[in-house]
C-alpha cells in the first residue's frame, strides 16, 4: 500500500517544517479571532461561532498540526522505524491544512452546511496519519514505553474522530444524540487523550534528551500511562470526579518524575524554554484539580488552563527548542560544518515571546474569573503578539538555514 519509504529515520526538512509553519500561521488566526470577539469568549456558550473556531484553530491547527509534524520526525527515532511513505505525509498535510481552515471558517461564520466538508477533510487526513502511526508502531523496536503511549494516543485519535463526526452530524443534519455527553467525551479524547498522551509519552525521552538528563524510570512512566488511560476512559464516559482524580494522579506522578529527571541533569544550564514547560505542567495540574473540585470558576477557566495553558504552552516550550535543533541537523554540510543551535536561537525574541505568552495566559485567566471582556481582549492581544513573535522566530530559523548561517560560534543577533 505504502511505497516510497524514507531513506532513513531523518525526514527531509520540508516535511516536519511544513507542519510547524502551518501551526504558526493557525496560531495567529486563533488569537486574532479572540481579540476581535472577547465578549463571546467571556460569555462562551457551546455552539458555533468565533470561539468555537478559535478553539479548533488551536486544537487542530496548532496542537494536532505540530504533534503530527513532531511525531513524524521524532517517533521514527524512538521506534527505530523510518516513515513508511513520504507521499502519504505530504497528502496528509495537504488535506489537513485546508480541512482545518474550512472547518474553523465554517464554525466562525455559523455555516453548518460547510462544516461537514472541512470535517471530512480533517478526518481523512487524520486517518492517513493514523495509518502511518499504526505502521510505525507495529514495527517499533526500542523505547517500549514511548510506543505504548503511541498506541494509546492512536486509540484516542480513532475515538476522537468518531465523536467529532457525530458532533458534526448533529450540527449539519440534526442527528438526535446526547450532545453534551458526546461533546465532553470529544474534549477529553482530544486534549487528555490524543494530544496529552503524545505529549506525555514523547516527554519521557525528548525532555531528558534536551536537558541532558536521565529519563524517568519506566515503571513510573507505565504507571502514569495506566492512570491517565483510566482517567480518559472515565472522563469520556461522563464520570468526571473519578476521571479527574485518576488524571490528577497521573499528572502529579508524571510531573514529579520529570522534575526528578531534570534535577539529575548533567548540564547545569537549563534552556529558558523549560520555563514554559514548567508553567504548562502547573496548568495541567490546576485544570485537573478544578475538574475534581467540580469546576469552581466555571468551565471556561478549566478550558483555558487546559488548552492554551497546558497544551499550547508545553508545545511552544518544546518547539522553541526542537525547531533550532532540527534545523541545525539539516543546515549541516561538509563545507560549512554544523551550526551551533545558539546561532539558530534568537534569544531576545524568544524571551519576549515567552513573556507575552505568559501575560496572555494570566489575562485570560483573569477574564474568566471576572467576566471582563476587556481583560480577554488584552489577553488575546498579548497572545497575538506572542504568536507573531513565534512566527518571526520560525521565519528567522528558515532564513538562517536557507541563506547560510553566521560563523558557527556567533550567537544569533535577533
Amino acid at each position: 500500500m505504502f511505497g516510497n519509504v524514507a531513506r532513513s529515520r531523518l525526514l527531509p526538512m520540508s516535511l516536519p517544517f511544513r507542519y510547524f509553519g502551518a501551526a504558526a500561521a493557525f496560531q495567529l488566526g486563533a488569537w486574532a479571532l479572540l481579540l476581535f470577539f472577547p465578549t463571546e469568549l467571556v460569555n462562551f456558550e457551546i455552539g458555533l461561532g468565533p470561539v468555537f473556531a478559535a478553539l479548533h484553530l488551536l486544537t487542530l491547527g496548532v496542537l494536532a498540526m505540530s504533534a503530527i509534524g513532531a511525531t513524524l520526525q521524532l517517533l521514527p527515532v524512538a521506534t527505530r522505524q523510518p516513515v513508511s511513505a513520504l507521499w502519504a505525509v505530504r497528502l496528509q498535510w495537504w488535506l489537513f491544512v485546508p480541512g482545518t481552515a474550512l472547518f474553523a471558517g465554517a464554525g466562525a461564520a455559523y455555516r453548518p452546511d460547510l462544516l461537514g466538508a472541512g470535517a471530512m477533510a480533517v478526518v481523512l487526513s487524520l486517518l492517513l496519519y493514523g495509518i502511518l502511526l499504526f505502521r510505525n508502531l507495529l514495527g517499533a523496536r526500542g523505547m517500549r514505553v514511548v510506543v505504548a503511549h503511541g498506541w494509546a494516543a492512536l486509540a484516542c485519535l480513532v475515538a476522537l474522530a468518531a465523536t467529532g463526526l457525530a458532533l458534526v452530524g448533529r450540527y449539519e443534519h440534526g442527528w438526535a444524540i446526547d450532545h453534551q455527553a458526546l461533546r465532553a467525551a470529544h474534549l477529553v479524547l482530544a486534549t487528555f487523550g490524543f494530544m496529552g498522551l503524545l505529549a506525555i509519552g514523547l516527554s519521557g525521552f525528548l525532555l531528558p534528551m534536551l536537558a541532558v538528563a536521565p529519563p524517568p524510570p519506566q515503571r513510573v512512566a507505565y504507571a502514569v500511562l495506566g492512570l491517565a488511560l483510566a482517567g480518559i476512559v472515565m472522563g469520556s464516559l461522563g464520570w468526571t470526579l473519578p476521571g479527574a482524580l485518576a488524571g490528577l494522579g497521573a499528572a502529579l506522578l508524571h510531573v514529579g518524575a520529570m522534575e526528578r529527571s531534570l534535577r539529575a541533569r548533567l548540564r547545569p544550564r537549563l534552556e529558558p524554554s523549560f520555563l514554559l514547560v514548567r508553567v504548562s505542567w502547573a496548568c495541567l495540574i490546576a485544570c485537573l484539580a478544578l475538574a475534581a473540585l467540580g469546576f469552581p470558576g466555571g468551565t471556561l477557566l478549566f478550558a483555558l488552563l487546559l488548552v492554551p495553558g497546558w497544551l499550547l504552552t508545553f508545545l511552544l516550550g518544546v518547539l522553541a527548542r526542537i525547531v533550532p535543533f532540527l534545523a541545525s541537523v539539516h543546515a549541516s554540510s561538509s563545507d560549512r560544518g554544523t551550526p551551533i543551535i545558539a546561532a539558530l536561537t534568537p534569544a531576545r525574541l524568544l524571551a519576549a515571546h515567552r513573556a507575552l505568552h505568559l501575560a496572555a495566559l494570566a489575562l485570560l485567566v483573569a477574564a474568566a474569573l471576572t467576566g471582563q471582556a476587556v481583560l480577554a481582549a488584552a489577553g488575546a492581544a498579548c497572545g497575538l503578539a506572542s504568536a507573531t513573535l513565534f512566527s518571526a522566530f520560525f521565519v528567522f530559523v528558515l532564513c538562517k538555514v536557507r541563506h547560510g548561517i553566521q560563523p558557527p560560534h556567533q550567537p544569533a543577533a535577533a
Partner: protein
Amino acid sequence: MEFNRHISRRLHEEHVATLALWGRLESALAAGRHDAALLKSAAASLERELDRHFRFEEAELFPRLAEAGEGDIGELLREEHETIRAAGMRFIKLVSDEITNPEVKRLGLELAERLVNHVQKEEMALLPALDDFIDEETDHELDSAYAAT
C-alpha cells in the same frame, strides 16, 4: 536509556563523563570563572576523545550505519566530528600555550554546546541503532577492540 550491546553501553558511559565535565566547564566559563585546572582537564579529556572515541566511531560504526541504510545520519555525525575536531584542536593548543587568552572562553563555550548536541544525536540515533545491526559476536569484537585502544 538502556542499551543491549556492550559497545553501546561503553560509549554511553563515555558520553555521560564528557557531558558532566563539559557541563561543569560551561557553567564556570559562563559565570566568568577562569578555572585553569578544569580547563586543562577538559582539554586532556577532549584530546583522548578526538583520538580514540571519534576515530573508533568513524572507522567502525559509521560505515556500519551506512550499510544499515542510515548513511545520512552517519554523514551528519561525521561532519560534526570534523567541526568539533577543528575547534577542539585549537582549544587544546590554546589551553596548553596561552590559557589566559580570551579566545579560550569563546572556544570552550562553543565546544560545550557542540559536544552536548553531538552526544544528544549519538544517544538518540547511533547507539540505539547499534542494538539493531550488530550481533553479539560483532559486539564482543568491537568492544574488545575498543577496550584495547
